[in-house]
């Protein structure tokens, strides 16, 4: 990344704020900035590094920014670096420590919140106004993505819950109930029935490896049971050593015999593989599984539907883990702050680009703005015809059950979650039970100790 001209262009902001107001109406905001704003062009040249998840949507987001650059900063090229989830922490550490952060990051909320609390991100309240503060879909708030001490640090890219994917052909064949009505016991029974009756097929699959995917899958069970890692209302006291944690661990242990044998090393990739190749009839996953099945295994795609997670028998909760994925801007050593801000607003106010973004991997990335979620153009995708209920569950119905490790049970942001995932504490707790045969009570105690260590080491973030 070479910056040949450090001259920063700050002209034209007044006009842009006015336009932002128009965009807030969410009507035909597409291309507004590019075409009408009479900005002096940015004269910087170079490559603007952007981090994104593996998947096409980051590429689409960057394509929108490049469209902005063509008109407003011809010397710049935005380039997406897709960071595999399990590499995020290594990449984060080396790039930030090397003082060569990307100029823009698209990342799930635990990491965004960790960075924001560390003071590594730029506040973006000015952008929120331009993009439109009142555009968010019902059931979410700005702080789900990243708000700290009254300032917004993250702009929503999408929301993305993992749900229960079920092969309905198998459910019908075996005469099982409608998965929408299941509680944990029904899920367990279904997994058992399928494993016993279907040769060579596991009943259920979730990730159990020492990785991020397991953290996220287990978090949904923990939250459904009513358990939590920390209590943000009480100085982030550790709540993990609880009957709820034990219950969730026990449930994983009970499900274990009906999962593929290799599940103890599964991460994102292998869970998708297991479902797409028909090794399992049910799995926890984000919408990506359907996208891959549509490409590689049509019958699996046609038979698979997504449901909100099975109810916890006592609490009745059906929590998912929602990756409130947002764009954030590193504050230090970032030579393209102004350009990135403008390009981001351009992308976020372009209806056409936002719909393209969602369409690029249906139904994995859900729209965050009402005007996009309700746009007729969004329905202009074959999945909306063949799988309208599943798509709607991912996009809308899941929100009532959303939770995240960075905002547990939606009771307040938690910047410690990034550290928890960096060290795979939840996954390791699960592995203590499923690999080492530790008693769930002891595993919960172990996890609680690790969480307490994180809290102590990072007390500075919480003050």
């Amino acid at each position, binding site marked *: 990344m070479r910056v040949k001209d450090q001259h920063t262009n700050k002209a034209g902001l007044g006009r842009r704020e006015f336009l932002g107001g128009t965009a807030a109406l969410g009507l035909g905001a597409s291309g507004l900035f590019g075409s009408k704003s009479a900005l002096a062009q940015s004269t910087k040249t170079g490559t603007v590094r952007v981090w994104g998840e593996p998947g096409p949507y980051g590429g689409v987001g960057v394509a929108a920014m490049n469209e902005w650059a063509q008109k407003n900063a011809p010397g710049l090229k935005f380039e997406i670096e897709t960071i595999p989830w399990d590499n995020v*922490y290594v990449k984060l550490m080396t790039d930030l420590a090397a003082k060569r952060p990307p100029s823009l990051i698209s990342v799930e909320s635990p990491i965004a919140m960790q960075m924001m609390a560390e003071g590594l991100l730029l506040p973006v309240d000015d952008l929120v106004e331009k993009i439109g503060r009142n555009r968010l879909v019902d059931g979410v708030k700005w702080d789900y993505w990243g708000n700290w001490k009254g300032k917004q640090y993250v702009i929503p890219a999408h929301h993305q819950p993992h749900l229960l994917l079920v092969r309905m052909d198998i459910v019908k064949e075996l005469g099982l109930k409608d998965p929408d009505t299941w509680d944990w016991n029904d899920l367990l029974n279904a997994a058992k029935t399928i494993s016993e009756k279907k040769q060579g097929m596991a009943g259920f699959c979730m990730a159990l490896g020492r990785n991020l995917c397991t953290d996220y899958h287990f978090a949904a069970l923990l939250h459904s049971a009513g358990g939590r890692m920390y209590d943000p209302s009480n100085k982030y006291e550790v709540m993990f050593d609880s009957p709820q944690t034990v219950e969730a661990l026990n449930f994983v242990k009970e499900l274990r015999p009906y999962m593929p044998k290799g599940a103890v*090393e599964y991460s994102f990739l292998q869970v998708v593989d297991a479902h797409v190749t028909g090794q399992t009839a049910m799995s926890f996953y984000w919408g990506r599984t359907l996208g891959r099945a549509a490409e590689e295994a049509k019958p699996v795609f046609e038979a698979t539907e997504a449901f909100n997670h099975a109810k916890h028998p006592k609490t009745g909760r059906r929590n998912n883990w929602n990756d409130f994925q947002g764009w954030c801007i590193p504050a230090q050593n970032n030579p393209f702050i102004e350009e990135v801000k403008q390009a981001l607003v351009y992308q976020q106010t372009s209806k056409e680009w936002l719909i393209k973004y969602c369409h690029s991997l249906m139904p994995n990335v859900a729209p965050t703005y009402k005007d996009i979620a309700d746009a007729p153009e969004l329905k202009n995708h074959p999945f909306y015809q063949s799988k309208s209920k599943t798509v709607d569950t991912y996009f809308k119905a899941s929100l009532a059950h959303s939770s995240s490790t960075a905002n547990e049970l939606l009771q307040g942001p938690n910047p410690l979650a990034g550290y928890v995932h960096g060290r795979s504490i939840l996954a390791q707790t699960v592995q203590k039970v499923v*690999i080492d045969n530790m008693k769930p009570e002891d595993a919960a105690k172990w996890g609680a100790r690790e969480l307490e260590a994180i809290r102590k080491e990072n007390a500075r973030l919480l003050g």
Partner: protein
Amino acid sequence: MRRLHALLSSDRAVGLLFIAPFVVTAIVFMVYPVVEAIRMAFYSYNPLRPDLSAFVGIANFEFLFSDPLFWDSLWQATVWTLLSILFQTILGVGIAMLLHRALFGMAFFRGLLLFPYIVPTVVIALIWRWIFNPEIGVVNYSLLASGIIREPVYWLSTPTMAMASTIMLNVWKYTPFVVICVLARLQTVPLELYDAAKVDGAGFIRRFIDVTLPQLREVLIVVIVFRTIWTFNKFEEIYLLTKGGPGTSTFNLAVYSFEQSMASLRLGVGAATGVVMMIMLLIGSIVYLRITKFGEEVR
């Protein structure tokens, strides 16, 4: 100018001039980082917040010694090292004996058998994950098809099998090292020794034990010490194949140090682990020097 020339052509000056680049490079890129690693072992250091780094005395070591995972890693590293070395030595000597024949085409075999040594670890790890894939891998397919196993083997999913797989990888890659060293030595064994043994009526096995092994003793000790030191501290072979999993069952100290530094953002603890590794290495090196009587040779 003439003076300078005179100085340069004086023996001593030329000698110092020639050694200077080495000394400078060694100090900057070898001594300094190691000293710095030792210093860091006494500091807390979060790479995201270097401004907060502080002297913590021996807290990092206390953390290490009270962390069960550290002890697990140490134990697992020991198991993985001992088994790797055992198999490498046995196979290495065996293959070297096979290759030590003046038969047609031997150079061809020799070339192929030494090949794994140069294959990048990344490549081996990827190939390993491909051929040992429990569902679609060719190894399980062949074993199932030939009736050796009835159920697919989960090569990387149970602690025991994962350890076995990493050992296999290590043995596969580094046995050539042993082969080359042993072969080089075998070629210097005087043939008369064998002839004498034959005259005495010793069979193949007797000849191996009475003649070959004593001749190989020295080179084997050197090879074993070297390989032990390196194998104990291997990082890539394990990290790229299993990332230390499943669970933490294939962690060794190198993986532990990396994970503490990177994933847990505790560079100080990672460095302290490095210091422990260095101490063990020093012991190993002293053993090596003793055995080879290195000091006595130096003129």
